[in-house]
């Protein structure tokens, strides 16, 4: 067990699976599958496995996404790393082919493939197109694709192992703002299940639900609120599809207060689904959403940082809901 960065933990998972399965391939575009970590050997999938299995080609994210799908259909497990700039370019093939193919073939198509899709937009200065973090909602609406979003290096590795081993296609959202996180991560392979949310903090006054890039702010706000005496329960969704309704409803049935926090657009943010599920199942609770407004993120740091849900914004909304 060593303290590992997010990407090191992920590539460690991929490396071990690739060593065990000579058919497993990896397609990248801008981000070579290379990671280093203090005291650990450098991981470089391209040099270790060669350019027949690990390859970059041109700027064509639709090809990348479709190619791993074709590899999977041919019986080779396969993964690709789609940079955030191209995050929605492969959308149609994932939504309309991958998501439907198992059903359309009556269960005959198997697609053991993983699309790692970068999410960014947490840094001020990059306007609109380069601050695209609405991917969570788009991908989680797709049936037939498991859409997941880790928020810690431990989960990042364990979910990657599970995703690579799953016979179902997986959209693995990678909130790139979390790249600086480090934590103790086991060296061996382990799986984090593809259907369970994580309760990060227990409390009985208020449930806060978030995911991915929203988690650090939520955890910080929860500390502030705890110090003020509020019993905050924090749930990290981890899995957007199939969402773990039971954990959510159990918590809200207890707290009767639900605050959702998303670093993506308000309308149809993951929190909308969380609220709808809880509202359908728990009577007499109160609900609130914190989210990015329904506006493309502007480049200017002044505008952007004001619009982005912050620790104070989250804490303020929590107080208003409980108080």
């Amino acid at each position: 067990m060593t303290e590992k960065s997010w990407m090191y933990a992920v590539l460690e998972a991929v490396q071990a699976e690739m060593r065990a399965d000579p058919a497993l391939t990896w397609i990248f575009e801008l981000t070579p599958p290379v990671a280093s970590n203090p005291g650990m050997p450098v991981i470089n999938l391209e040099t270790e496995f060669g350019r027949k299995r690990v390859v970059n080609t041109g700027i064509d994210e639709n090809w990348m996404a479709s190619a791993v799908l074709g590899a999977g259909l041919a019986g080779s497990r396969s993964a690709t790393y789609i940079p955030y700039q191209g995050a929605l370019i492969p959308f149609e093939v994932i939504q309309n082919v991958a998501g439907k193919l198992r059903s359309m073939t009556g269960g005959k198509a198997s697609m053991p493939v993983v699309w790692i899709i970068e999410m960014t937009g947490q840094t001020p200065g990059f306007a609109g197109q380069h601050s695209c973090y609405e991917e969570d909602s788009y991908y989680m609406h797709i049936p037939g694709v498991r859409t997941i979003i880790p928020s810690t290096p431990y989960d990042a590795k364990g979910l990657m192992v599970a995703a690579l081993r799953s016979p179902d296609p997986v959209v693995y959202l990678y909130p790139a703002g979390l790249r600086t996180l480090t934590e103790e991560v086991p060296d061996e392979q382990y799986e984090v299940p593809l259907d369970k949310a994580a309760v990060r903090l227990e409390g009985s006054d208020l449930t806060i639900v978030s995911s991915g890039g929203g988690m650090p702010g939520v955890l910080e706000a929860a500390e502030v609120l705890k110090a003020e005496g509020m019993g905050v329960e924090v749930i990290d969704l981890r899995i957007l599809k199939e969402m773990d309704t039971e954990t959510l409803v159990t918590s809200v049935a207890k707290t009767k207060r639900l605050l959702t926090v998303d670093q993506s657009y308000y309308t149809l943010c993951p929190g909308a689904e969380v609220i709808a599920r809880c509202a359908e199942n728990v009577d007499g609770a109160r609900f609130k959403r914190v989210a990015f407004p329904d506006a493309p993120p502007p480049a200017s740091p002044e505008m952007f940082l004001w619009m982005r849900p912050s620790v104070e914004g989250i804490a303020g909304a929590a107080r208003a809901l409980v108080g």
Partner: protein
Amino acid sequence: MTDSSGQDVTHPREGEGHPLSASRRGFLKFAALSGAAVSVSMSARRAMADGAIGYHAMDLPDDKLVDMYRTILNIRWHERTQADQMLGNPEYRGYNHFYAGQEAVATGVCAALRNSGPFDQIDLVYSSHRPSGHAIAKGVDIPKMVAEMDFRATGMNGGYGAEMHISDPAVGFIGADGMIGPAPVIASGSAFAFRARGSDQVAVVFAGDGNYAAPHFHSTLNNAKLLDLPLIYVCENNLYHQYAHYSYSCPHTDIADAAAAYGIPARTVDGQDVTQVYNAAKEAVDRARAGGGPTFIEAKTYRYYNHWGAPGAKQGELGAFGYDPLAITSFRPEREVRAWMQRDPVDIARNILVDWGILDEARAAAIEEEVKAEIKAAFEWGLSQPLCTPEDGLKHVFAEGTVVPRQFG
């Protein structure tokens, strides 16, 4: 791309000097069998015309040649029987994008592939929205396909997919794709996987002339060339996509020219003659298995029915004439249909086999009767299968489990 003298100037001539060894199956058939004077526009890249493709069909054993003839008949009689069902049986619920007229393309290509064996050794075929011919040529179980097209629980895909999504990976038929665009790119991904795992399998995609305009066309060919993928792109140019002539969407006379521009060996072949299709496919398969990368084959062909379903068709008759009521602004001329039907792939295949002394007319006719009977039985079996159970719709979303019903609140 041809220069002013009509020479093919971009095609890498790997096939040059292929030994055209002596055989009882000579070249006579060309003059003798080419049939009516349909003007099929053919460039200098046409197979046989410049000697770059050997006449591989002549080397096939008799039973294999008879199988090809039988496959063509299977496709044809499946089509005709289904059209008759649609026109005459009010209980029948299935539909098709009929393939009749194009049988020689699927048959010739699939005859050059490995169609049985373990999944990690057989060649894979990706099909289009017009899949029945490809499916039969690749070897799917016809009765189960018939059941599938009529939404039966025991159909090839449990009634989930129906015509535009039939699939049977067990014979390497990855399956139909109802969309125009994605299939060739996905097929190139299978080819990528073959190369990565050191397999000599090849991936084949059948796509219409309509697919040329999709942006995916570029992705497919560019990456196939860059990565030297064992991909065979079979462009079935039947002149129309839906109701538009392909000149509305493609500036090339030969779509193969578009592929040649990438440096990919590209050929046009007469899609009505199964032996010529086979020759081109064999060459492509050999090249791909040997690590020589992709090939593009443009088969000039024609469909006898309208784009979708049986409008304009009459029970018991082959083909659809008159205008398709679905076609509002553009139509294909009835005389064009009739002219193409003069060079029918069934007739051409039978005449070649008879000419080569592999069959006589009586045996050829007997085979056709056998096929008709088999197809009839396939429909009887298929249409007597059980209907689906409503609740099963919640299955097969993921590999395990069912999803929650939400339609009742």
